[in-house]
């Protein structure tokens, strides 16, 4: 994905290339293979035959953060897990995105207590929040498509962090 570095100021050609790169990014977005709680079950079924997320170029769940572009935080994050989650996020190569799946990851959900992070956005920057407890696979796929819209609209300058 080192296109940003190689491109100079190429004027009108840059905009079209930008679009092409963004499009290709959305069609080969590999999520990281990890689940934290019951939302992971819905994430698995979104991957499986009935809902088949590979229609959107996401047939591969990478078990290594170094090979993935997208982190789906599926489930509640305990305070003890939060540093681990941040480390996984830091190990992912740029550009990277985060989907916070479900109420617990988004705002703590029913677990308003000392042991659970009240929203994973305190640990990693989140692009898309998916509501639901747990969200159905359709909702997750909708969240992924919303992320795709965001990625398609991104300029190189804002992706480069």
């Amino acid at each position: 994905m080192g296109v940003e570095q190689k491109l100079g100021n190429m004027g009108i050609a840059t905009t079209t290339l930008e679009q092409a790169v963004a499009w290709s990014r959305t069609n080969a977005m590999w999520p990281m293979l990890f689940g934290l709680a019951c939302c992971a079950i819905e994430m698995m079924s979104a991957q499986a035959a009935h809902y088949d997320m590979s229609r959107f170029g996401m047939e591969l769940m990478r078990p290594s953060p170094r090979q993935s572009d997208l982190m789906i935080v599926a489930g509640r994050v305990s305070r003890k897990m939060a540093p681990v989650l941040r480390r996984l996020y830091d190990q992912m190569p740029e550009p990277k995105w985060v989907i916070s799946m479900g109420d617990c990851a988004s705002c703590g959900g029913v677990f308003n207590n000392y042991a659970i992070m009240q929203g994973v956005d305190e640990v990693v920057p989140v692009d898309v929040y998916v509501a639901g407890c747990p969200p159905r696979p359709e909702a997750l796929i909708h969240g992924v498509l919303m992320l795709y819209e965001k990625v398609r609209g991104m300029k190189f300058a804002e992706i480069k962090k």
Partner: protein
Amino acid sequence: MEKKLQPIVGKLEKEFGVTASEYRGDVSLVIPAEKIVAACQKVHGLGFELLSALTAVDYWPQASSPQGENPRFHVIYQFTSIAMNLGLTLRVPVPGINPSLPTVSHLYRNANWRERELWDMFGIKFQGHPDLRRILMPADWEGHPLRKDYPLGYEEPQFTFNFEEINLRKPYAKE
């Protein structure tokens, strides 16, 4: 009380000078803190080879003077005898100020982690424990969460009328 349990409880009552209480067939004895190691040794010798639970109750805001009257905590040892199919409970009152007990991890190996859990969750120290660290919470955690006076959480619910105000001070992650 179970017939097989009666002589065992009788021996314990005689040796430690306590009276057993029974609730729906579950027998429990209140043992003073300084005698708990001897009591566990005795119970182990009487055939209770398994410490099936070691937990505590916090009776906050019950008084917890240094003299130990109206103790705040009760530490509960539940034993099981698989051979005899029996259960037995020992309760140990512990004061709320500097709560501590002698360890029984040399008698029952699983007491090692259970005592670490009690230290982590209730702040009850176990003298002579080989490795008294937190077991559930992160190592740098402050406080003991299962105490009744421990605050539950800190999240402020955001409604439409105060959404912006709370959003400003929410600790969002930076890149």
